[in-house]
């Protein structure tokens, strides 16, 4: 009984410390110095929220770059992964279908290899990035839909490439699309 009461009181104290004071301290520091990041890296256009820089969103308009396919159809609450195995016929079919769709949308021939990030789905279902190759393949489509010179879009893309010592080079698709809306001839 003594052990029980000691446990109960210690649990209360430690819950206050680890479940109250600690998260509040992190929250306070985060809000003070990294408010934008702590609140979900939200992006706005014309004063309304269009999404988060970190979350991919469904894009069907040819005027915008498309992100990676999503197994959960870009749902955010909760997002989903395919969890399919390499020996899964479903996965083979999905990859082939994604490849075919991408070729059709971008009018690419069988001779053009399609990067794997465009044919597979991500772990989070919300992968915000694409490889530079995957973005570049979409330039002709986006340029013709917007009546813009491809070189202009290409130059924008080159400015948006992110490199890191700790991962592959990549481009954030939503941020790129928002900048695209600001491009004029």
């Amino acid at each position, binding site marked *: 009984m003594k*052990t*029980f009461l*000691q*446990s109960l*009181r*210690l*649990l*209360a104290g*430690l819950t206050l*410390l*680890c*479940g109250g004071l*600690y*998260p509040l301290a*992190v*929250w306070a*520091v985060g809000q003070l*110095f990294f408010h934008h*990041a*702590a*609140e*979900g890296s939200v992006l706005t256009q014309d004063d309304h*929220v*269009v*999404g*988060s*820089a*970190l*979350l991919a*969103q469904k894009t069907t308009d040819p005027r*915008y770059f498309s992100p990676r396919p999503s197994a959960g159809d*870009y749902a*955010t*609450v*909760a*997002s989903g*992964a*395919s*969890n*399919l*195995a*390499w*020996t*899964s016929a479903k996965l*083979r079919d999905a*990859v082939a279908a994604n490849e075919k769709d991408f070729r059709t949308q971008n009018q690419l021939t069988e001779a053009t290899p399609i990067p*794997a990030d465009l044919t597979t*789905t*991500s*772990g*989070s279902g*919300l*992968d*915000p*990035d*694409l490889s530079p190759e995957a973005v570049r393949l979409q330039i002709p489509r986006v340029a013709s839909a917007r009546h813009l010179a491809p070189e202009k879009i290409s130059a924008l893309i080159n400015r948006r490439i992110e490199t*890191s010592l*700790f*991962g*592959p080079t990549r481009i954030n698709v939503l941020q790129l699309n928002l900048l695209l809306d600001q491009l004029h001839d």
Partner: protein
Amino acid sequence: MNVSDFTYLALFVAVLVAVTAPLGRWLAAVLRGEPPIWLRWLIPVERGLYRLAGIRPDEEMSWRHYTGAILVFNLLGGVLIFVLQLFQAKLPLNPQNFSAVPLGIAVNTAVSFLTNTNWQAYSGESSLSYLTQMAGLGVQNFLSAATGLAVMAALARGLSRKSAHSIGNFWADLVRPTVYLLVPLSFGFAVVLVAQGVVMSFNPYVHAVTLAGTDQLIPLGPAASQIAIKQLGTNGGGFFGLNSAHPFENPTPLSNFLQALALLALPAACVYAYGLLAGARRHAWVIYGVMLAFFLGALGLSLWSEYSSPGSAALALEGKEVRFGITPSVLWANATTVASNGSVNAMHSSLSPLGGGIALFNILLGEIIFGGIGSGLYGMVMMILLAVFLAGLMVGRTPEYLGKKIEAFEIRLAAIAVLLPCAAVLFGCAISFATEAGRSAVGNAGPHALTEIVYAWASMANNNGSAFGSLTATGDWYTWGGSVVMLLGRFGVIIPVLAIAGSLAAKKTVPPSSGTFPTDGPLFAVLLGGVIIIVAALTYFPALTLGPVLEHLLLAAGRSF
């Protein structure tokens, strides 16, 4: 693989080894009750907690008393999570108005967090309130980790004390590492994570209208604080359903590197701290070497499989994130399965057949290759006892370990601690194969389906918590059966370990003689490695052959299901 992949791996291992000694010294000092000078300002917090609970930290406990305190304390922690889940609808900090969690899931999640497994039958962003996450799951992230450290400290005391009847004070062993190690370390790490983009907010989810004109709900929550300890305390239960693959939980390549490092750092430091606490530093480095060899071997094989299995060029990015890439994802998959962390940054079910198989094998080794914080080390000591016992049989002498005679009592308990999780895995699998409830949960066909089931039971019984996500683990059999298995895998090891600690503490120390088998040389490392492989291979060889190995061969033959 290119040069940058190798640089990445080399950097990771170099940093891991470099932080081992400083963190180990810090941990050992804290467990001795001598916090580092720069943290002495926290002494009033420690004392305040003792006063609040009416505890005398210098009161010595017998192993039975110690065990009782652990069981009661952990059980209460589980009850707290359980209650928070059931009543979250009526409690504050629930901006999305989530209703009560279903009973089976609530029990499973409570057990999962109190046992440091952190198996996810839940999906945080669509079912748990901020309060449940913060005051329930978040707290057990700390306390289950500290419990592991306490048991390790008690075991080290058992070995270093002579003719003693006590193994320390559980309350002090619990509070000290929490206050002087886990909270400060997590705080620093959490702030870095927020800076990288991990959310830390109490606001309701944000409504956005996307460029396509559709609605999108942006989930928020006090995530950063929880993710820091999730990684540092080998917990692994995600704030979001998709864990560290979710961009809000692991937003950048740098955050990914740091999280991968954080999940192995303290388990590695535990080995060093054990060497200091038990007075056997050379022996500790031998253990470290064996662990590192297993880890690097598994990592090498996984990378080979992921990059060179048939279909790799087209399929290797399935379930992986562009910002991480293949090599960091495979590194994480190995780190999280050798350590009993269980967080994921890529979907293990979509790894190459052998890549996923090696992740499974890492878990089946018993979470002793670095393993859980504290628990990896004491689990490894059980294996060491078996190794010295075998060596004793070979030379025909009573085995000794660190100056203590190892007798029938210790060997019996060590065998229980090693075999109980194995038995739990096999029984769980057998019943799953034999019942419709077990079989119908799978999400893939062919040998992969078998691997899914084995992985689930291996993960729960060894307190890892990662999963082949294709398995639907929310049915009654997996939630209730899983809860039992997680408890067995945790306390079925802790109780024998503490009994051994108590028994060893009571023994006299025998000076080493010419007949003593030295435990601090390469010969012992080989013997220990052999014992670990033999135990796992004898238990799981058929399952591994019919699952991942067969799937690999069929993949090579061009079969799909």
